[in-house]
């Protein structure tokens, strides 16, 4: 115990990445809300000339929330909890501090420039891998720097056994490395010829069906290793810390971890059901998607059972509310995904709004809730001040929960309606609806979704304000709180 108390952790990097989490969160959600509104009110496409159309802005939204907001939150939490579970301070190694700072600045500047490149229309077109090759190289360097920092910290650790959270961050590092490298294999045309054309342009190493397979092996598992794996790493650390409860079952965490590692990657081909990918691959994708319920629910149930006997905390600690609700949304999302991966359901759901609906109950309800809860927990410890306002947190919680529910219910209805209308035939077997009929019918649902976006964004701004006030006006703490985060 006494050795723990003596150790001063260095939070400078955790703080820096916390700021970018908030910055990119606001940016990504503003763009997301705008493009949601564009689908209901197309006139909004003309706010920024050619740079403001839905089609240009959608990759800006997806990439900013993935590589900006989520990846920042992953880095921020790693630089906070990594030191603590390994019982070693970053400040003990000059080398690790230099690597960490280099990682931060390269990441921050790279992310800004890459976002501008998307606005200008520079794109490899692979979803969530749109950045052209020079930006890919920067991302690889940032990622390797993170890996070096992580391995370095593990190398000088005092606590010999790696805590569960570290397993997940390690898996995030390894998984994303593999996926990103293979999916972005491309030849820059400028260098393959005598300097002809645009230096940024490149051509994919894979073609057609192969390219689709590699892309969705990546696309699905980028979700796995960026939106699931590190977030589980967060909850395994922050829930026990906040609640003062030990993790319910070590065996369940083992089973869930290795289960997730093995099963997740097979499921990528469920994005390609009924396409020209061979049937056996589609079937594998479907089957493994169903199996994926086991490790996913394993983690979520482990979290919920960790609260066993302590459910009263749910009523008076908004942070526990955020974390428990995020596990619940994780369960919802991981049962919904497998349902959509069943062939007959997929025939209706694919290409419709049910898919973005599914993505968003996961990212808004699970990823963003858990990331915000983590930052709420870290802030008083990093800034040595009490959280500024519990009331504001409560209001934010209910506003954003309402937003998520509005988002996914409206998109469920929209998706299933459209899927059914596309295939509806009259008594003679002729198609009943022209395509535009199936667009017009969605207007009310698109409007509801845009409202949901505004609500969620408002909640996020409340979060940003709360953190800002905590840093500047929160009551100062004389000693570090042990479990429950103090709030005014």
């Amino acid at each position: 115990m006494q050795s723990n108390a003596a150790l001063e952790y260095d939070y400078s990097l955790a703080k820096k990445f916390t700021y970018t989490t908030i910055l990119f969160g606001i940016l990504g959600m503003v763009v997301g809300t705008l493009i949601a509104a564009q689908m209901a009110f197309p006139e909004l496409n003309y706010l920024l000339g050619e740079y403001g159309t839905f089609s240009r802005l959608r990759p800006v939204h997806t990439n900013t929330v993935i590589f900006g907001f989520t990846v920042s939150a992953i880095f921020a939490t790693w630089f906070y909890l990594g030191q603590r579970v390994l019982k070693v301070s970053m400040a003990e190694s000059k080398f690790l501090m230099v690597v960490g700072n280099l990682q931060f600045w390269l990441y921050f500047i790279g992310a800004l420039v890459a976002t501008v490149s998307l606005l200008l229309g520079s794109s490899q077109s692979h979803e969530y891998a749109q950045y052209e090759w020079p930006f890919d190289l920067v991302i690889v360097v940032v990622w390797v720097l993170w890996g070096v920092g992580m391995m370095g910290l593990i190398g000088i650790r005092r606590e010999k056994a790696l805590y569960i959270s570290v397993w997940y961050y390690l898996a995030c590092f390894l998984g994303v490395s593999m996926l990103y490298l293979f999916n972005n294999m491309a030849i820059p045309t400028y260098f393959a010829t005598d300097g002809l054309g645009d230096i940024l342009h490149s051509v994919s190493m894979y073609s057609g069906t192969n390219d689709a397979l590699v892309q969705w092996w990546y696309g699905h598992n980028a979700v796995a290793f960026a939106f699931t794996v590190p977030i589980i790493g967060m909850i395994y650390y922050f829930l026990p810390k906040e609640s003062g409860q030990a993790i319910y079952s070590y065996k369940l965490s083992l089973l869930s971890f290795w289960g997730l590692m093995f099963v997740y990657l097979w499921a990528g081909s469920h994005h390609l059901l009924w396409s020209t990918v061979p049937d056996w691959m589609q079937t594998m994708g479907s089957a493994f998607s169903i199996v994926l319920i086991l490790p996913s629910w394993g983690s979520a149930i482990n979290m919920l059972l960790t609260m066993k006997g302590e459910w009263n905390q749910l009523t008076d600690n908004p942070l526990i509310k955020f974390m428990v609700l995020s596990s619940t949304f994780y369960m919802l999302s991981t049962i919904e995904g497998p349902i959509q991966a069943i062939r007959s359901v997929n025939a209706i759901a694919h290409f419709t709004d049910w898919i973005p609906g599914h993505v968003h109950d996961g990212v808004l309800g699970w990823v963003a809730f858990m990331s915000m809860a983590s930052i709420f927990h870290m802030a008083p410890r990093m800034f040595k001040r009490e959280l500024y306002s519990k009331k504001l947190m409560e209001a934010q919680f209910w506003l954003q929960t309402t937003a998520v529910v509005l988002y996914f219910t409206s998109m469920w209805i929209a998706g299933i309606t459209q899927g059914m209308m596309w295939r509806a035939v009259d008594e003679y077997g002729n198609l009943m609806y022209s395509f535009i009929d199936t667009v017009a019918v969605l207007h009310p649902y698109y409007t509801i979704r845009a409202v949901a976006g505004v609500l969620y964004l408002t909640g996020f701004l409340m979060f940003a304000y709360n953190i800002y006030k905590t840093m500047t006006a929160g009551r100062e703490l004389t000693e570090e709180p042990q479990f429950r985060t103090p709030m005014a």
Partner: protein
Amino acid sequence: MFFHWLEKNPFFFASAISIVISFAGLIEIVPNFAKAARPLVDMKPRTVLELAGKNVYIKDNCLSCHSQMIRPFKSETDRYGDYSLSGEYAYDRPFLWGSKRTGPDLHRIGNYRTTDWHEAHMLNPPAIVPGSIMPAYKHQFTNLADIETAYAEAVTVKNAFHTPYGSEFKSTRAAWDAHRPKVLADAKAIADDMKSQEVKDAIAKGEVPEVVALIAYLNSLK
């Protein structure tokens, strides 16, 4: 216990993760690779103008709302035409199947839409399809398509992947200068079917507006 040992040995832990996550890709993707890359018999790769149009399609990210994948259901073949075959995509780098149909599928749009239809539609979609939520793409009439990059792409795929472009496709600037009139002739053929004087003037000056390349590409989707 094995797992307790593993948790104290980060190198082996990381190796174990790497092995466990590699299985799926190796078993699902690799075995079919060569077969899935095979084109249909006698299929020709896209012309340079069509490639430039494909790059406009990517630049303005048409695939965020349009698919190019007709699934084997009667409701889809009735609406869009024959279902898609793997070999049809063999020269597509990247693939452009899309994942969302906010608008209709475009894989065979060349069979049922014409140059003048596209011209009017890109200028003002709701005027052609009442109720459409697609934005207008007026800037494609003034922005110029990057035909040189498209040529560089053709040469690159010919050299790297043996895509069957003719022997005149070489990586030198001289070869490009020799090929350029052919691209402009293709562009003129499209522009002749268009109404916009602005576009015709640009073509006369030896420039290719984005919309011309895009229409050439859309017309080639059959």
